[in-house]
C-alpha cells in the first residue's frame, strides 16, 4: 500500500533554527563560504534535519506523535538549500511493507529533493495509534 506523498519546504531560516534547537552549528549548514571551501555546491541541510522532516511524515501517516519504535536512514546525497525565499523542497513517500501480528507496521520510505533521492534504506516501524 502506498501512503500519501508529503512535501516539506526548507529554507536557510529553517536551517538556522534547527542549528540552534539541535546544537549542531557546523558552518556547512549556514555559510556558503565554508560549504564551498570543503567541496559542497553550497549550504546543505543537516542530515538530521532531513531525518526529522521525514519523521514528521512518518508520525503523520501513523496518526500519532509517539508511534515510532524504530527508524533508520542512510544519507546518500546532500540537500542543497539556496539562499532564496523559496529555498528547496523535500518530497517524502512510503509504502507499507508489512503489518505484523503484534500491530507493528513497517514502512519503506523514499525522500527526494530536486528529483534525486537523498536517502536510501530509509525504514520506520510504527505501532498502531491508540
Amino acid at each position, binding site marked *: 500500500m502506498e501512503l500519501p506523498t508529503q512535501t*516539506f519546504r526548507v529554507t536557510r531560516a*529553517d536551517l538556522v*533554527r*534547527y542549528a*540552534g*534547537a*539541535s*546544537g*549542531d552549528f557546523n558552518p556547512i549548514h549556514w555559510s556558503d563560504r565554508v560549504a564551498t571551501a*570543503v567541496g559542497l555546491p553550497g549550504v546543505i541541510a543537516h*542530515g*538530521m*534535519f532531513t*531525518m*526529522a*522532516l521525514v*519523521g*514528521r511524515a*512518518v*508520525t503523520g501517516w501513523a496518526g*500519532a*506523535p*509517539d508511534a*515510532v*519504535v*524504530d*527508524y*533508520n*536512514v*542512510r*544519507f546518500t546525497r546532500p540537500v542543497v538549500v539556496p539562499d532564496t525565499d523559496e529555498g528547496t523542497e523535500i518530497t517524502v513517500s512510503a509504502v507499507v511493507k508489512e503489518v505484523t501480528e503484534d500491530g507493528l507496521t513497517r514502512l519503506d520510505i523514499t525522500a527526494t529533493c530536486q528529483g534525486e533521492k537523498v536517502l536510501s*534504506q530509509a525504514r520506520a516501524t510504527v505501532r498502531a495509534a*491508540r
Partner: protein
Amino acid sequence: MSLDPSFVGRSYPPTAPYQVGREKIREFATAIGATDAAHHDPAAARALGHPDVVAPPTFPQVLTMAATAQIVEDPALGVDYRRVVHGDQRFAYTRPVVAGDELVCVSTIDEVTTRGGHGFLTTRTEVATVAGEPVVTVWSKIVVRGEA
C-alpha cells in the same frame, strides 16, 4: 583515512545526566515544524498516556551528538572532523523521550572499517534514565573521507 580497528568494542564513560526540559522539546518540535499538540501541551501528552510533553523521534540527537563527540574527538582514534560526513542513523525506542526524563548516555564503538580510502565509524549510544530504565538506542555511522 585509516581508522584503528582495535577500537571496536571500546565503551566510553557515561555522560552527566541530561535533564529533558519541556521548553527544549517545544523548541525542537517548533524547529522541525512538528505541530502535534503532544509535543507542546502536557494535557495532550497525558491524554496519550505520557507524564509530560513527548519529544519527536529524532530529538535524542541533542543528547547523543554530545555523547559521541568524546569518541569523534578522541585523539587516540584520530578522526579528522573536517572530513566527516554523516552516513547512517538509527533510533530504536523502548519508549518515547518525555519532558522530565533525566537521561544518561553510554557510547560504544560498534564498527571501524576502511574501504576505498574512506574510514567508517559506527557508534552505538544506549540512552537510559538515571534509574537505569532503557529509553532508546541510537546508532550513528560517520564516514571520514580519504584525502583526494
